[in-house]
């Protein structure tokens, strides 16, 4: 018997209880400090040599060399990130809390936005129009018959408490609002799971990007300075390469998630694609949990404005997510005669 389930070999056992492993901090000990200093000195020496060599090149050769050098630096940033932030062993991730997913996707504001949207749909929050204000601003207030203690998620309870008195939705995001409470709920946990960068990882990212930025700017600006010194003004291509490469390098600092976090979010987006395609029918057919998870994975923007008008009124500028809604197909059996439709090469049936 070769394929009996319990004897089937598995490459790894994902069912063991998974304890989130702490992000490894990259703080340096005293012994390592000299290595860093040596690296920095070597880097600047090489940069100086390279700058001298490269600016001596004629115009076209310089542009080509500069372009290649910038591309190499950017490629090194990618490689370094892959090495420093591996997609680790795929551990279990609790998908039962939609606000954790929202936090992973877009931070505290996004988690608050999704929680508020869910509470509006559940009729625990009501949308009011402030007639006293000139702009007739929208305000949210907790429904009088709502029992916050009965709600399962602490974030929902916190949002309801916040809107005990009518307030504008944006006030949640302001200093002294709810952001700190949301950070306290999810940030550390997601950092420990390797889904968000730790402080050490952020510092390392910044250092790497700054090294790249220094190279790009020093070489580019030096060449521009020399060209202008000699009266040449045809520096357009150099400026373009320098600006594009500099912006590209800077994006490495701002990535909100780790590569592993991106992997998890992309996986969830892929798994929910079919449901997203049916977002317009969710309100009539689905449970609140489905709406919450859809908003958690894709953002409030995934809820169609015509079906969820109050949510979109509360957040008219909800950020759109970048994921695409591709085609997804699931096998389903038709009700007539047991024939089945499926895609991906031929049709099977209801086994």
């Amino acid at each position, binding site marked *: *018997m*070769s*394929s*009996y*389930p*319990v*004897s*089937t070999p*598995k*490459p790894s056992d*994902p*069912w063991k209880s998974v304890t989130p492993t702490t992000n490894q901090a990259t703080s340096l000990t005293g012994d390592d400090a000299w290595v860093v200093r040596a690296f920095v000195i070597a880097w600047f020496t090489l940069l100086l040599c390279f700058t001298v060599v490269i600016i001596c090149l004629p115009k076209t050769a310089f542009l080509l060399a500069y372009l290649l050098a910038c591309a190499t630096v950017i490629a090194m940033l990618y490689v370094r990130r892959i090495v420093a932030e591996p997609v680790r062993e*795929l*551990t*279990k*991730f609790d*998908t*039962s809390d*939609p606000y954790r997913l929202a936090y992973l996707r877009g931070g505290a504001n996004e988690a608050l936005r999704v929680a508020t949207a869910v509470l509006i749909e559940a009729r625990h929050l009501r949308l009011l129009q402030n007639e006293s204000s000139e702009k007739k601003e929208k305000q949210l207030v907790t429904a009088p018959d709502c029992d916050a203690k009965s709600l399962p998620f602490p974030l929902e309870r916190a949002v309801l408490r916040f809107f005990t008195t009518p307030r504008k939705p944006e006030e949640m995001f302001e200093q002294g609002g709810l952001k700190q409470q949301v950070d306290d709920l999810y940030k550390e946990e997601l950092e420990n799971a390797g889904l968000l960068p730790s402080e050490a990882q952020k510092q390392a990212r910044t250092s790497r990007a700054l090294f790249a930025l220094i190279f790009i700017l020093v070489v580019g600006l030096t060449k521009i300075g020399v060209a202008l010194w000699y009266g040449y003004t045809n520096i357009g291509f150099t400026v373009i390469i320098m600006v594009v490469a500099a912006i590209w390098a800077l994006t490495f600092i701002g990535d909100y998630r780790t590569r592993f976090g991106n*992997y*998890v979010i*992309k*996986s*969830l*987006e*892929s*798994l*929910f*694609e*079919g*449901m997203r*395609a*049916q977002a317009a029918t969710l309100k009539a057919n*689905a*449970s609140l*949990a*489905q709406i919450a*998870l*859809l908003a958690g994975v894709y953002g409030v923007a995934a809820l169609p404005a015509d079906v969820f008008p109050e949510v979109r009124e509360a957040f008219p500028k909800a950020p759109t997510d970048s994921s695409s809604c*591709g085609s*997804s*197909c*699931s*096998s*389903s*059996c038709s*009700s007539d*005669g*047991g024939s*089945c439709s*499926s*895609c*991906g*090469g*031929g*049709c*099977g*049936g*209801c*086994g």
Partner: protein
Amino acid sequence: MMETLPDRVGLGWRAPLAADILSNLDRIEAIEVIADDYFDAPRKDRQALRWLGHQVPLILHGVSLGLASTAPVDLVRLDHMARLVGEVEPWLWSEHLAFVRGGGIEIGHLAAPPRTAATIEGTARNLATARAIVGSDPLVENISTIIDPPGSTLDEVTWLQHTLVATENSLLLDLHNLYANACNFDFDPYEAIARLPLERVGYIHLAGGKWVQATRFPGRRLLDDHRHATPQPVFDLLAEVARRTPQPLVVILERDGDYPPFAELLNELDVARTALARGRAAQKARTDVVTTL
């Protein structure tokens, strides 16, 4: 050393159920994904499936290989399956003991093969090819039919027995298919279970169906349409299998449309757990009696 696992009860993964499944993983111990949906899927979708397989034990279930046939299995589809199994690293993979094409024509349906020595030989050959290309054996599923396959010389259970003898594969026992065939062709499903090599059962399917009026032959037929709740007799069959098998069982509930509120599906899973527990308790009681004697 074989790992000892408890019985598991799970659900077929379908897009409309995705959110509910992911929010209730504490009550769903395995999921089954239609493999064919991912044959041409982009890499990100396959990676997503791999991630899903690390959240909950995942089974890939094929519907288009057509293994139970005298015609050779489609190597292109088998190659697709091999790639998918390699990328996703599922817990198990499975296919139907059905044919889906003949004479180069796709029939678009899982059809029961003629139950003959020739189809047993062809099935064994195709399963050997599957093992060689994919690198592991699929569990093979008995299918339902509303017509007795023309040209058959063997009954269903005998054909299944001989097929399992000719191969090394384990059985994916679809209890609703067995029940539907028993209703349609008037045999006793309990007797069928007693004759099957139950030690070869790897996992079990549950589903529901509906009665349809046949047009070409008298009477009505039970159609396995996966759109209705699992009937009680099928849960009773599950208890019977649990009573007769020593190994841990994995039970997957199939639902392909007319989705009820998710609480009802969860309730069906609980009923399956109860049936399993009932069967295990009966088995234990019987063992205790034998030991006492």
